[in-house]
């Protein structure tokens, strides 16, 4: 029974594989093995063209090794620079600790100025005539500017347009606010200095 089954299987395999394909393969194999000869004009030049790029590629590889060395050296230097900058930053923070804080001093100075002005006002009171217009007064007679000149509009001057104040910005960045505050402080200090 087993022998019969094997024979049937072999017959089925024979039926499945077509005969035409076998023939084609047999024909194709001798043609692919045939060598093809190509004639070249300048074989020496061609060989030269082939050898020179290979030499250049080898030089490439050599220079690439150098390049890698340079790169690692550069990385080392960059790390060194980072460390140096960190140390510099630390030193600057130390220096800040040693030096006095500008903010407090500036505030004190401004307070002192204000106190001096108050003392001066107390010592030298204003003249009794206060109804005179501001334009007639001389600059020397004015010890302090108590009110801004914008608040007293002159009659001669043409009416100026009121500058509409910009809408309040939505402040979502606290860092920005801090920076603005610091900038304001610095400007204030500069104003006191000049």
């Amino acid at each position: 029974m087993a022998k019969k089954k094997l024979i049937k299987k072999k017959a089925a395999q024979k039926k499945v594989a077509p005969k035409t394909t076998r023939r084609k393969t047999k024909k194709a194999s001798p043609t692919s093995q045939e060598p093809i000869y190509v004639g070249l004009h300048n074989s020496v030049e061609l060989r030269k063209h082939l050898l020179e790029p290979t030499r250049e590629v080898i030089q490439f590889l050599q220079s690439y090794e150098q390049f890698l060395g340079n790169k690692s050296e550069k990385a080392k230097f960059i790390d060194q620079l980072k460390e140096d900058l960190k140390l510099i930053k630390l030193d600057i923070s130390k220096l800040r600790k040693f030096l006095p804080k500008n903010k407090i001093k500036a505030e004190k100075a401004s307070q002192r100025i204000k106190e001096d002005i108050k003392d001066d006002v107390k010592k030298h009171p204003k003249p009794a005539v206060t109804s005179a217009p501001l334009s007639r007064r001389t600059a020397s007679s004015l010890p302090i500017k108590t009110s801004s000149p914008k608040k007293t509009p002159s009659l001669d001057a043409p009416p100026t347009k009121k500058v509409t104040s910009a809408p309040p910005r939505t402040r979502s960045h606290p860092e920005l606010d801090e920076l603005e505050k610091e900038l304001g402080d610095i400007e204030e200090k500069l104003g006191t200095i000049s």
Partner: protein
Amino acid sequence: MNSMPVFVKIEEYEDVIELLVSLRTKIENAKMTLGKINQLKQEEDAQLQSWKTALAEIESRLASMDQFLHEPEQF
């Protein structure tokens, strides 16, 4: 107010001076390393440029070879 001298109280004055000296030396070191990095970068750039030219040359040679092989002599 402008002409008045300003006195700043500095405690540990010598320490501050030493710190300033060390800061100066560190800044000099940083400058030197930066210079070295810059030099290496320039070398790298020069190397890259030479590779670029060499590659272009190789490409042209290969193109000529390609021409040779694709257009063989006909008998």
